[in-house]
Structures are given as structure tokens and as C-alpha cells.
């Protein structure tokens, strides 16, 4: 039991991201409303962002990756120690991923607006009904 607790306490960040990811995946598959699917997609992407960011953390008093006293006096002679700052790379990667997910969200919403214009609804089964009514059942 205590092993399990150690395991959970040591790695709870991964548990959180997996939970979020499952919520997102469930919403994308189960929900009939296209807007809810898009929200699910966003949760799914956010889960992955959380995963990356949590890998950047360093215990033992590491600070944000901005070198202290770097202001003003050009090059600092006393080099920064890697243990004093958290890992900057995942933050950089996730800045990119956040921007990508915002961009995807924008395009998805655009298409949702177009779909709404066309069928007057965002419910998948109602859209299917409209399509069947329009084309007589052909794909």
C-alpha cells in the first residue's frame, strides 16, 4: 500500500494529464454536438501541454528560467547553475503547441460556423437527417 502511495505521490502529474486526456477523448467520441467535440479536442490538447510542462519541473528550489541579476551588466561572469532553474525547453515547446492549438481551434470554429450556416444546427444526428433529406440517402 505504501508503495502505491509513493508511486502516486511521486507521479501524480502524469495521472492528472491522463485523466484530462481521457475526458477529452471521451467528449470527442461520445458527444453528438460538434461544438462539444471541439471543446473535447481542446481539452485533449491541453492535457498534452500539461504533460510537457510538468516534465519541466525540478525539485529543490529551482526557479523560473530567467537568470537572476542578468539585468544591465551584460554578460554575467558567474555562470548560471543548471540546478537553479527549471528546464526551459518544455516551456518553449509548449508555447509553440499552445499557439498551434489556438490556431486549430480557430479553424475548427470557422468550419463549425460554416456547418451551422448550412444545416442550421450543430447536432450530428440532426445534420445527418438534413443530409438524408437533401440527397435522398446517397453519400
Amino acid at each position, binding site marked *: 500500500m505504501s508503495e502505491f502511495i509513493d508511486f502516486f505521490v511521486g507521479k501524480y502529474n502524469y495521472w492528472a494529464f491522463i485523466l484530462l486526456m481521457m475526458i477529452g477523448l471521451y467528449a470527442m467520441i461520445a458527444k453528438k454536438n460538434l461544438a462539444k467535440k471541439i471543446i473535447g479536442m481542446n481539452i485533449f490538447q491541453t492535457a498534452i501541454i500539461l504533460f510537457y510542462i510538468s516534465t519541466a519541473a525540478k525539485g529543490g528550489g529551482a526557479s523560473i528560467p530567467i537568470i537572476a541579476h542578468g539585468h544591465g551588466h551584460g554578460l554575467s561572469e558567474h555562470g548560471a547553475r543548471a540546478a537553479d532553474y527549471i*528546464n526551459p525547453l518544455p516551456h518553449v515547446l509548449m508555447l509553440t503547441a499552445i499557439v498551434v492549438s489556438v490556431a486549430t481551434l480557430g479553424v475548427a470554429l470557422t468550419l463549425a460556423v460554416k456547418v451551422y450556416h448550412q444545416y442550421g444546427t450543430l447536432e450530428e444526428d440532426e445534420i445527418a437527417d438534413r443530409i438524408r433529406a437533401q440527397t435522398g440517402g446517397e453519400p
Partner: protein
Amino acid sequence: MKLVALASALLCGTILLFGTAEFPDFGDPDSPAASHVSPRYIEEAMAETSAPNIVTAVLADYRGFDTLFETAVVFSAAMACFFLLRIFGEDERRPSEKLYRHLPTGITLRIDPGGKVPDSPEFERIDGIWIPHDVIVKTTTRLIIPFIQLFGLYVIAHGHHSPGGGFQGGVILGASVILYAISQNLRQALGRMGEAVSAVFCAAGVFIYAGAGALCLLMGANFLDYSGLAPLFGVDAIQARSLGILVVEIGVGLAVMSAMVWIYYNLASMGRHQEGL
């Protein structure tokens, strides 16, 4: 369908949970991620790029190529939005009727096509009958928009030393324009920052970034190697890197600001650009 979804989500989660057993613990300072590539950034970024904010240094310089395409993603999203939604020409449901409000009385006039447009400062053109004459919102936004924009510029320019940079600052600047569009109306915002302006600024922002990289090529350095720009700036290679970061951050800020505004214009008015929120 719900069962299938639940099953697949649970399956996926279980498989992923199973994998976490071998992961390094949360906050482990000796994990491979913290000990292989990243120490070099932390220890050398200041000396190599003269930017104390390591995230900015890595974002705009070490991995600047990623960021270039990140900006291009924003640009293509805005372009995609425009491409998909924009409807040119008049709205056939309400052909060019115009609404004016007489400010002292609050009466709304509807001018049908061909009618005479009132020419007096007492009249204000509005989008729809239901738009109220809201002094509170308009005054407040007028008061705070300059501060928002100032803050946006600060965030862009101060990205070397504090959290921030082109993306964050660009979004703040874009938000100020969107706030203007919400508090006044879409037509007035389009008058301040038109569609062509936002499109061309968006492309120009990415172009500043990519062009800075291409300029490095012309100077004989590798693509995006800002140290090649040292002769142009008249400084040494490390300061040139720092200035190069600033240049691309400005490009990013410009592109992101216009992209946000442009996406808002198209989404809010469903591509008609007649009346939005």
C-alpha cells in the same frame, strides 16, 4: 456510442497509466529531460545570446526555426478563417439599408437604399436597432485601451528580461482592438484597422521574421543565425543575436495581433463584416 467512447477512453488511459511506472518522478532534477540538452541552455544562454530570459533565448534563437513556423501557423489559421468564411458583397437579406440614431433623442432612423443620409454630428450610424447608446462601456474602454496597448508593447519589448515576448504581447494588442470592436461596433473597428491592414500586417509580421532569417542567409550565415547580422547592426556577434531576437519578436507581435483581430472580424460577423457583436 457512449459505451464505445468510454471504453476507448478508459483503454487509452489504462495503457498510458501503465507506462507511467517507469517515468522519472515529478520534479526529479536528474531526469534525462533535465540533464541532457537543457543544462546547456541554462548555463550558456546568457553568454551566447545576451538574453537573461532563457525561454526567450531558446524560443527565438536556439529553436527559432520552430517559432518561425509557429508564427506561420497563426498566419495560416487567420488566412484559413478568411478563406472559409468571408462573403463578399451585399447581404441579400437586407440590401444596404442604413440605420442612424439621433443622439439627443435616441430615435433610430432607417434609411432605405437610395434615401438621403443625414449629415449632422447629431446622428450616429449604428448596426442594428437593438444597439443601445451605452456611455458607460464606451467611456471605460476608451479609458483603458491605451493602457492595454502600452502594456502589450511593454510585454513585447521586455521579453528579454521578463516573462513575455511577441506572442503574449501580440495577443494583448489584439485584445485591445477586439475590445474596441466589442464596445463600439465592428464597422468602427474596421475603420480603425481595416481588413486589408490586418491581412497585410499579419503577412508582414511573419515576413519580418522570415526575412530576418533570409537576411542572415544573404550575409553568408546559416538561416536565422542572427550573428550574421552583426555588421548590419554594428555590434558584436552576441549583441547581434540579442537584437535579432528583438526583431523577430516584433515581427511575431505584429503577426499575432493582426491574426487575432482578423479572426475576430471574420468569426464575429460570419464573414460579412457588416455587423458583429
